[in-house]
């Protein structure tokens, strides 16, 4: 497993009576793009919170490039090279778009290079026109891109995207898919998304979660034909 960027072993977290993530064994290769799907409450966002140290697992381990990062502080994990776009965009509402990118890039770059990176990313996410506007005023779709750009500016090796296409128009969704494929040329990604059109545009391997556990892991085509997955989405598998 030396070429795995991320590996979880028996990863679990329990909130009182609910086991939101149940014994998840998950492996992601370097520069892999993985889609993570599953019905509401399946534990996808909770898994992301475990991976980024926002929650501490009740059991199991997380290995990032072979280093055990289980229980490490969020900022220390980020420094190792994991970036995340959260489900509800987590932004600095009083700051401008440019300041977001600046803060993210500046941690690892000198001032001059930071400015260049910020301009480059603004171009890439198409937000140059609103670069100096406060982020609090932007629409949900644009906020998604600001957060995506902020993550990109930090250039983490592994990027987690939690519902990056939510609240976007059809064109914006297509643009986001293109962006994700472009990022994937150099970075490993895990993408959580409910929008199946979007998933079809980017997916190769798909992991399906249900009630905290991994249900299946397969190619997109076979997942779409999988009867169990269909049942889960239609709610026939509830209460097992």
């Amino acid at each position, binding site marked *: 497993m030396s070429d795995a960027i991320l590996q979880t072993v028996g990863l679990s977290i329990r909130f009182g009576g609910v086991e939101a993530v149940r014994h998840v064994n998950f492996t992601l290769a370097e520069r892999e793009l993985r889609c993570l799907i599953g019905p509401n409450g399946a534990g996808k966002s909770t898994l992301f919170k475990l991976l980024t140290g926002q929650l501490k697992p009740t059991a199991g381990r997380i290995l990032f490039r072979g280093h055990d990062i289980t229980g490490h502080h*969020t*900022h220390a994990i980020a420094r190792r090279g994991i*970036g995340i776009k959260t489900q509800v965009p987590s932004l600095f509402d009083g700051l401008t778009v440019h300041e977001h990118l600046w803060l993210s890039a500046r941690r690892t770059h000198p001032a001059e290079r930071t400015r260049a990176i910020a301009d480059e990313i603004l171009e890439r996410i198409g937000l140059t026109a609103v670069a100096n506007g406060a982020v609090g005023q932007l629409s949900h779709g644009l906020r998604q891109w600001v957060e995506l750009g902020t993550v990109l500016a930090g250039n983490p090796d592994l990027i987690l995207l939690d519902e990056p296409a939510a609240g976007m128009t059809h064109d914006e969704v297509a643009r986001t898919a293109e962006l994700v494929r472009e990022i994937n040329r150099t970075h490993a990604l895990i993408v959580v998304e409910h929008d199946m059109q979007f998933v079809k545009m980017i997916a190769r391997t798909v992991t399906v979660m249900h009630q905290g556990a991994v249900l299946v892991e397969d190619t997109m085509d076979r997942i779409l034909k999988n009867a169990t997955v269909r049942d889960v989405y239609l709610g026939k598998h509830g209460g097992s």
Partner: protein
Amino acid sequence: MSGRRWWKGSILTTAAMVLIALGVPQVVDQFGLLQLTVFAAMCILALSLGFVWGYGGILCFGQSAFFGLGAYTYAVTAINLGESTVATLLALVVPAVFAALLGYFMFYGRLSDVYLGVITLSVTLIFFNLMNSTAGDAYRVGKARLNGFNGMPSLPTLNVPGDPGRLLDPAETFYLVMACLVIVYVGLHVLLASHFGRVVVAIRENEARCELLGYDVRLHKLLVFTIGGGIAGLAGCLFANWGAFVSPNVFSLTMTSQIIIWVIVGGLGTLLGPIIGCLIMQYLATALGTQQLANTSLVFGVIFLAFVLLVPRGIVPSLRRLALRA
């Protein structure tokens, strides 16, 4: 907060402060000069909380703890050494170190904001009670008697470094205090414009996002709190000098609530605000002190409530918004 307007404002303010510093001794009498000296020292104290609370987002109800610690450190050291230079330096360092220790406990212990307020307030009141109970000959540090609630009178005032016999006269002291105020003001501006300062502001906006970007929130808050403690200590040292006297009142509830009122009235999230708020309230306190019509604490309480309810942003941010709209 970035951009040209911000710098323009701060350069104007700095220029105004330098002009006042140079001009005032020519036009006011001795009494006025002393008055302005203590005002300026208090402005430094106001800036310390304006930085810690307004930018660091740290709810500190006990900024007077560091102020008082600076004042007492100066008093004890100056009496023992018979000269002021080392005493002044220690008055900066001791409160800063104390703030670092207290901050470590609070931020690395992940205490919530409400507890920060309660703990900092408790700390200053503990100092208040502690110093009040040091009456009698048993309580001395070297040559310095602490004197409990009576305070420590006749402190050696500032001398020219290296020449304990050459004391600063009132005009020189005023220049020095104004120089400290300008340095603290400009220094905080430069700090806030730096990488560190921008992260501090970002933490105030969204702690979780800062962590996710790889910034250690606890460390940044600790540094802000420590710097704020050092600045408050400097203000305490200058205050002790001004009256050649220090008493436990520097730690009192009145003292610590005053600082909060200055910052609220002047405006959170600015550096000019705390200075303006401090000047207005100090002027009022002096004016009220010389008459018998109304109780000062009562008037302060009413002003505080009025601001919280009617001008919650404070004077400076409100005026800025008006200016932007015009």
